[in-house]
């Protein structure tokens, strides 16, 4: 089969089994778009801004576990995509980004729409390539998918100059199935000695905690994790990225940990004697002050990426390997042991944890005449019976969703944890909805975040994506306002959005349904109405208490035991 560079790109995507490409055309990718036009296997989703192409591909990848694909043109197309690439990089999301580049003879001449895409993206990709010869194209794309999906996943960018896609130059096409790279070989198994050591320490534990992260979901190890908890009866907490890997409604789940984690999770972290970190990376939002992090604990850390280990926190027993395979190895060893964990110590530990739970750290004022954002998320859970794919933007609403919408399955909670990208939620929801056309997909957002990618309402119209936007509208950049209240004596510097659009009219102008809810009593009915519109995009503008804060809160640089609790905790 003889193909041009442009045809090779499209054929390679077909051979990779790619369903959707999120993209936006432009000069440098015109040949490729022409090749896309002539086939019907790979579906192209036309976004309205390249940031949404990368977020869309990202949402698709997070929901399915498959590789997201974005296609953008050179120059501004590529720079617009950077935020989405960095978002995927920070959360280790597999993605291949194909970017157009100016023709090879003019590279370096400051040609029209030229930018050093490989240079700009280098710090926020797992790897990237500039393809200068059409003969290298198929192999490079194959490598890109392989690197993106294997080991610790991440985005890989392939920059393709326009002349490399020239429709007149046809070469024999061969797409390699298997690939081996001498310079890249991710760990496939954990070290048996380390695993045995870890199991021995776990069985000796008196006050154990499992601290799990996004790596459990990325490594498809949710079942293996559930088995571990089943076998040991250990308490488990999760980072923002790991929510849903273990059922959040299970009593052994302590809630999220970290800056806005629960009292019981954070206190357990502070008092634990054996911490088992699984696919988590000791992010500063999780650890708080490093010197006060788990002061009494022997720390076991399982991660597929060796550079994650002892990066922020010194680890006692490191295990490098895929989470699923190592947890399976551990399960075998646990079975061989006649004695399980110390039942008396564990019972005492659970008694202590239940006491912390009794603090009811997530309580809020249920009698407020205003809609409390927590109440809005609880109502969302009630109405959707926990069955959502829920994407989120960044800020207070993100934390409220993480605290009040318990996910029982992995890949249901989709948000930008590492980079904290406002504007992520709506385009990510598009990727989720395309992957699962029959699923109920909602995006919880704030009035500030949603405006950052609001143009994607047009994409949702074009492809009939019946997403529900749950806007917790408090008129402020809520998290900024909260920090200003706490740490800047309530000087609300530029955190008030002074000229908001009429979101109902705005939605209608895009051809969607808009709703506005202001009374707590109207909320559930309105939500039921919204979710009953199964084939419509509905934008719910929910006016919530502008002064509500996210609790508990650990100030940056404080220890886990130094939480602020809600002043309204007593009222509930």
């Amino acid at each position, binding site marked *: 089969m003889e193909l041009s560079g442009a045809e090779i790109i499209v054929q390679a995507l077909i051979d990779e089994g790619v369903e959707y490409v999120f993209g936006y055309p432009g000069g440098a990718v015109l040949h490729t778009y022409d090749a896309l036009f002539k086939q019907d296997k790979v579906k192209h989703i036309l976004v309205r801004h390249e940031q949404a192409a990368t977020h869309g591909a990202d949402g698709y990848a997070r929901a399915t576990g498959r590789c997201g694909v974005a296609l953008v043109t050179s120059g501004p197309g590529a720079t617009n995509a950077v935020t989405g690439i960095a978002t995927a990089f920070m959360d280790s999301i597999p993605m291949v980004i194909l970017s157009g580049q100016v023709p090879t003879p003019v590279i370096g001449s400051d040609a029209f729409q030229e930018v050093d895409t490989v240079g700009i993206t*280098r710090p926020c990709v797992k790897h990237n390539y500039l393809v200068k010869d059409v003969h290298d194209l198929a192999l490079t794309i194959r490598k890109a998918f392989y690197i993106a999906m294997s080991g610790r996943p991440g985005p890989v960018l392939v920059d393709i100059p326009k002349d490399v896609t020239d429709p007149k130059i046809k070469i024999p096409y061969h797409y390699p199935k298997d690939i081996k790279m001498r310079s890249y070989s991710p760990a496939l198994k954990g070290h048996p000695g380390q695993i045995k050591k870890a199991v021995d320490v776990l069985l000796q534990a008196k006050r154990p905690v499992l601290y799990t992260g996004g790596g459990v979901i990325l490594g498809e190890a949710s079942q293996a994790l559930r088995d571990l908890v089943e076998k040991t009866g250990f308490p488990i907490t999760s980072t923002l990225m790991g929510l849903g890997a273990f059922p959040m409604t299970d009593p052994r789940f302590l809630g999220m940990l970290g800056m806005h984690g629960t009292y019981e999770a954070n206190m357990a972290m502070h008092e634990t004697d054996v911490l088992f970190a699984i696919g988590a990376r000791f992010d500063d939002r999780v650890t708080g002050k490093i010197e006060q992090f788990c002061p009494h604990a022997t720390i076991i850390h399982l991660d597929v990426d060796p550079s994650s280990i002892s990066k922020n926190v010194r680890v006692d027993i490191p295990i490098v390997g895929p989470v699923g395979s190592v947890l399976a190895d551990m399960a075998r060893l646990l079975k061989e042991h006649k004695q399980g964990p110390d039942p008396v110590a564990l019972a005492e530990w659970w008694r202590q944890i239940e006491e912390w739970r009794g603090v009811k750290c997530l309580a809020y004022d249920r009698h407020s005449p205003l809609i409390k954002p927590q109440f809005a998320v609880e109502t969302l859970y009630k109405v959707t019976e926990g069955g959502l794919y829920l994407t989120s933007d960044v800020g207070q609403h993100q934390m409220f969703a993480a605290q009040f919408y318990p996910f029982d399955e992995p890949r249901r909670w989709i948000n930008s944890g590492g980079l904290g990208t406002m504007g992520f939620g709506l385009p990510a929801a598009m990727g989720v909805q395309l992957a699962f056309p029959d699923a109920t997909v909602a995006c919880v957002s704030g009035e500030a975040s949603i405006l950052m990618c609001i143009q994607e309402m047009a994409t949702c119209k074009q492809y009939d994506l019946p997403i529900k936007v749950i806007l917790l509208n408090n008129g402020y950049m809520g998290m900024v306002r909260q920090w200003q209240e706490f740490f800047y004596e309530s000087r609300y510097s530029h955190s008030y959005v002074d000229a908001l659009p009429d979101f109902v009219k705005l939605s209608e102008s895009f051809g969607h349904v808009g709703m506005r809810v202001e009374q707590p009593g109207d909320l559930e009915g309105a939500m039921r109405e919204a979710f009953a519109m199964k084939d419509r995009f509905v934008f719910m503008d929910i006016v919530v208490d502008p002064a509500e804060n996210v609790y508990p809160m650990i100030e940056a640089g404080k220890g886990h035991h130094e939480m602020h609790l809600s002043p309204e905790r007593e009222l509930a």
Partner: protein
Amino acid sequence: MRHIISVLLENEAGALSRVSGLFSARGYNIESLTVAPTDDPTLSRMTLVTTGSEEIIEQIKKQLNKLVDTVKLLDLTEGRHIEREMMLIKVRAVKEGREELKRLTDIFRAKIIDVTETSYVVELTGTSQKLDAFIQAVPEGLVVEVVRSGPTGIARGEKGLTL
């Protein structure tokens, strides 16, 4: 502590900038960096000199290993090794100074490789300290220009850092 790290890299465009970008992005120290293709033209050998606490050095090695272009890595400082740096130094050499510089060159087993009526270019190879010592030994005010390669190194013994 000072560490000399040898890295075998794919000889690909941009490999060097991935390494230098890594050091600047993560705030690691880099004292010197040399790189050139090996006998196998598809591979480059890089020698990095860096300083930091044991934790930082550990991270540097892990991060370097994580680069997709990195084939192999060895911390030479962990074992017995040989370290060499080359220097070309241009010195003002006039009248009786010419003889003194010639003697100095012999003492250090250096070579004079360019001569004019008023200058020498001296080539000297050795550890970085030896090169420092030579510069120190040149009489005040006579150094015109110094070019140093940065250290390269190789482990002692029969084992090689190869594929």
